[in-house]
């Protein structure tokens, strides 16, 4: 057993546990995007960053891939962590504003601006589809091809793969291409929606700042269309 402290709380976990799992065990919520319980951790989205401190030195690590070590001091919600997370969401939003999951994360974490060059990609290279295809569907039909800014996900030779069984697992798990944000503000400059944020929550579950995170709720999106922009 390994002893470590998360946000000052002592916890004992088994060898090989990741920081994310240890935090989850304590009920500490760390947002994730490319993490899935049934798949191997990948550390692509960087949303799960936490701060680990050793004396006065501190560094940021992705909690989904960092193994718990003896005496480690982990802080999941320090100011610099929250700032880094906001920046990560902002970067994702600049890449792929059409994703409802990313737009929801932006609303939830108070991202109100995108300071980067706006792109309209359909993929954030999180690798979830590649992993579900390999690890759960045992197919290995798709994978990363190319490198650098040309790295993308496709089948061999960009043609239908012989080993693909059209199970749809890749589309089911995709945070970007499946569930699209149809909010009213996505097409505008800056491509940040935040529409759900400004509406009376029609859902049962809501937060103090009137945000709905029913999954997927979408009622607010439909309502947003009927409310004049000046009143939002």
């Amino acid at each position, binding site marked *: 057993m390994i002893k470590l402290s998360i946000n000052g709380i002592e916890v004992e976990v088994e060898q090989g546990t990741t920081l994310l799992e240890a935090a989850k065990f304590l009920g500490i919520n760390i947002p994730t995007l490319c993490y899935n319980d049934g798949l191997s951790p990948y550390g692509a989205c960087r949303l799960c960053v936490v701060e680990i401190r050793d004396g006065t030195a501190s560094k940021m690590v992705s909690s989904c891939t960092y193994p718990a070590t003896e005496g480690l001091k982990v802080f999941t919600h320090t100011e610099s962590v929250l700032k880094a997370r906001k920046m990560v969401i902002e970067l994702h939003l600049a890449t792929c504003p059409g994703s409802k999951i990313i737009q929801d994360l932006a609303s939830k974490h108070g991202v109100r601006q995108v300071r980067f060059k706006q792109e309209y990609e359909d993929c954030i290279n999180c690798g979830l589809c590649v992993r579900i295809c390999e690890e759960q569907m045992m197919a*290995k039909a*798709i*994978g990363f*091809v*190319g490198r650098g800014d040309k790295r993308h996900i496709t*089948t*061999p030779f960009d043609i239908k*793969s*012989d080993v693909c069984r059209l199970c749809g697992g890749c589309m089911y798990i995709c945070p970007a291409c499946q569930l699209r944000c149809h909010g009213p503000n996505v097409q505008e400059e800056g491509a940040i929606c935040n529409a759900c944020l400004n509406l009376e929550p029609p859902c049962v579950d809501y937060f103090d700042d009137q945000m709905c995170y029913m999954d997927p709720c979408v009622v607010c999106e439909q309502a947003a269309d009927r409310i004049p922009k000046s009143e939002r």
Partner: protein
Amino acid sequence: MEQTKLDEIISANGNNRKSIIPVLQEIQATYNYLPKEELQYISEKMDIPLIELFSIASFYSSFSLTPRGKHLVQVCLGTACHVRGAHRVLDESKKRLQIEPDETTDDQQFTLKTVNCLGACALGPIVVIDNDYHGNTRAQKVNAILAQYKSVNNNGNDTTE
């Protein structure tokens, strides 16, 4: 390539994951590129998913998935070459060969590629054709350098034809 040759390559390098790159290198050396059928065959033979071979082949720039010409012309655009006018050398090469980077001439003789550093910065701007280093290249010299390879080809072609 006949399948026996591919089998030989696989058995010579060992039928395991760590021999993927040597196997691909040998196929690349034989064909000057990695043909689809060969990749499919070794994928089956070595029991490695095709996508994995495709990922590796597309990752390393020394592998090519499209046929390459007989001579590979690499124009260095690294920092040192760049400041010494590598772009003018590249423009001249494009004009002489009438192709863009990563393309092959119609007669399958030359493939033009740009690279980011060849580690011979003191010789910049540098052009590497096959394994010959042509240092201190100027745009004016490009035609003469290319001509050396053209003449060799023509002789070679004459004998084969």
